């Protein structure tokens, strides 16, 4: 968005989409060199956005020019954090650190897993869509967008990414806490009951469904992550509970800034797919809207209904154990529960299939 000349372009090379430009000062997080850096005026600049930023803006405005709508996820869908800000602070103030350390560690790892997006197979989209895709975000997924996303999340070569930045925020704020031994168990634990997911749209073939499904999933995660960032900022920049309020809070703000392009390119690409027509494997066609909305609906339902409950249960399990360290566990738990907020997921995701809506 920096120069007018760039805004007119809609085609970029992978090298361009991965390039960062110069910083005045690199970002060092708790001794670890990370991506991104600071301008002369001290403003943080996200990595790999020299061209990626303007490119995404150009694709989105082109979509609008062509009459396509940009996907909007209703903010009301976002489940609250558990423990919430007040609860997390209460725990920390009472010396119960494990649940917060665990939560921050899991966030860092989940961020890192975002790198799996570079392994998503991209089928020949030029063949699949009836309408041309030149000069769209869709045409650049494999040409730099997925790779840039992956590098942002888990770092690359000698630079840390979000995974390392969250670790740094945690370690600065809570002074290199011991990581609870059950972190990975909680991360990998839940499985076994759920079978392998059934295809929702067999007619588009497994490869395309996997790609669109993965993107829809990541988009929802990225949008909901906004709640996580706010939580992180609120908790970690409070001097009452954080040993490094400026450093730790600032670090989460940097991560938050880096996520913008992720949300925006995924919205752009999925919206482009939504505005197009897909050739099915049996030689017919299906509206992109039906597929994209169907996938978003499925994911949103899962992320707003089953997931928050599972996550609460998981946190709760570790909580009682961790509170044993406090002077009066029973009272603390009572106080903790009093700070809980009620939340019921909205009845609709906004992407209901046509027949349901009728």
């Amino acid at each position, binding site marked *: 968005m920096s120069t007018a000349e760039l805004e007119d372009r809609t085609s970029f090379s992978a090298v361009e989409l991965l390039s960062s430009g110069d910083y005045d000062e690199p970002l060092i997080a708790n001794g670890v060199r990370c991506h991104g850096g600071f301008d002369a005026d001290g403003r943080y600049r996200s990595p790999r956005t020299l061209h990626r930023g303007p490119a995404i803006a150009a694709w989105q405005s082109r979509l609008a020019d062509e009459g396509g709508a940009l996907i909007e996820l209703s903010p009301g869908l976002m489940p609250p954090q558990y423990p919430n800000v007040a609860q997390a602070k209460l725990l920390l103030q009472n010396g119960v650190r494990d649940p917060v350390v665990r939560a921050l560690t899991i966030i860092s*790892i989940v961020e890192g897993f975002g790198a799996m997006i570079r392994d998503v197979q991209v089928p020949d989209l030029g063949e699949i869509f009836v309408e041309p895709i030149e000069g769209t975000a869709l045409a650049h997924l494999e040409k730099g967008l997925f790779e840039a996303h992956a590098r942002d999340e888990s770092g690359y070569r000698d630079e840390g990414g979000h995974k*390392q930045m969250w670790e740094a925020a945690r370690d600065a704020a809570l002074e290199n806490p011991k990581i609870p031994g059950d972190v990975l168990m909680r991360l990998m634990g839940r499985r076994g009951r759920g079978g392998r997911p059934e295809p929702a749209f067999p007619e588009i073939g497994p490869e395309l469904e996997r790609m669109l499904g993965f993107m829809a999933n990541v988009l929802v995660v990225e949008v909901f992550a906004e709640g996580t960032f706010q939580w992180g900022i609120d908790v970690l920049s409070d001097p009452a509970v954080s040993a490094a309020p400026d450093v730790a809070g600032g670090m989460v703000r940097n991560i938050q800034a880096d996520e913008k392009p992720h949300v925006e390119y995924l919205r752009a690409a999925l919206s482009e797919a939504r505005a197009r027509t897909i050739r099915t494997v049996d030689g017919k066609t299906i509206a992109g809207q039906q597929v994209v909305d169907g996938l978003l609906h499925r994911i949103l339902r899962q992320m707003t209904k089953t997931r928050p409950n599972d996550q609460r249960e998981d946190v709760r399990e570790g909580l009682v154990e961790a509170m044993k360290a406090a002077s009066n566990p029973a009272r603390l738990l009572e106080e903790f529960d009093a700070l809980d907020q009620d939340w019921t997921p909205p009845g609709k995701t906004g992407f209901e299939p046509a027949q349901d809506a009728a």
Partner: protein
Amino acid sequence: MNLATRARRTFKIGWTAAWVWSLYKVPAFGRRITGRPPRPESELSPTHARAANHILALALDLRGVMIKMCQAVATRSDMFPKEFIERLKQCHDAVPPKPFDVVRSVVEQELGKPLDAVFADFDEQPIASASLAQVHRAKLHDGREVAVKVQYPDIEDIMHTDLANMRRVCRIYEYFDPQPLALLPLLTELTTHLSYELDFVREADCAERVRDLFADDEHVKIPEMIREWSSTRVLVMELVSGMKITDKDALVAAGLDPANVLQDLMHIYVRMILAAGFFQADPHPGNLFVTPAGEVVVLDFGLSKELPDGFGLGLFELMFSLMTFNEQAMLRAFDELGFRSKSGDNSTFLAIARRMIDRSDTGSFEGEFTEDMTDELFEAIREDPVAEVPTDFVLVARVFSLLSGIGHTLGSRANVLQAMSGAPAS
């Protein structure tokens, strides 16, 4: 064991050791007295091969502990040349079964009852016989079908004799060689592992621990241990049946996708090793079955191991940062895991991290953690032996290389990143 057997084993071990020693040292001595420089490592390949052949022949002759020793050496590509690794890898247990009378007397002695007081049926032909024990199919009086693992009667004795002999040989070797390989620690570790494998009570404990871990996972099956009839040397457990995990045709015929089976298998090991820090350390194909319903069966918990606190997370970090090309995070993980360079600086590990990362020429590992990557690591360490490898790491690396081998046989690759994320096979 009688004196003659003991003397024979002692003699054979000593003789082979002397012979191997002379293979290396006689030419070296010859060069020294004629004033020629020592042979470079690159010219030693035929010598390594001959030495390894001698050792292999000895193991196949003496069996038991010697076979285990060879198998242990074969996992240490960080210490031994590849000629050793390649040859000793082929050292398998294929022991003729012991006569049934021997089996009967062990079982009766251990259980303190006649065989038919416990079993309604007991197959005289074993299902399998290995270097330390053999397994028979039987039936309890309540009708349950069981597998009975019976330890050979004099195996503990043989083990002590062989280990003592090998320890003596190692001491002599370390005394004479100016720059000895650290064989004694290797032997000590082997001794520990063997004592684990000979304790069936421990094995049953381990099996139950892993069974609990996967209690809610319908993709995994661990046979139930029947503690009532088990002892240190006899292990009675639920009989399980299924296809061999490497039998691709059978899997396909049963309507299973070998890629999913492999992914489930990887998930099982990743969950045990990284998340639980306690694992069955011997995933060779003989210990893994697949039921027609697609459950992966894990057997043989003789070699199960508990990892030190935090080791699983360190391994996770190492594998994760490798597969996401983050060399700087790899360095921190090496350090957390207890890898040390003698000089104390980390340039050695930086170089190693880069070598491992450069194993991918496509810019993606596609979530794969391969044998090649650990081979690369071990080779780098062997070439430039300034580094110390934590022994737990060696055991884990062996597990991953066995899993990688199974993938190879199935013509499929496991996505380790996906397994680590807890996502099901897709």
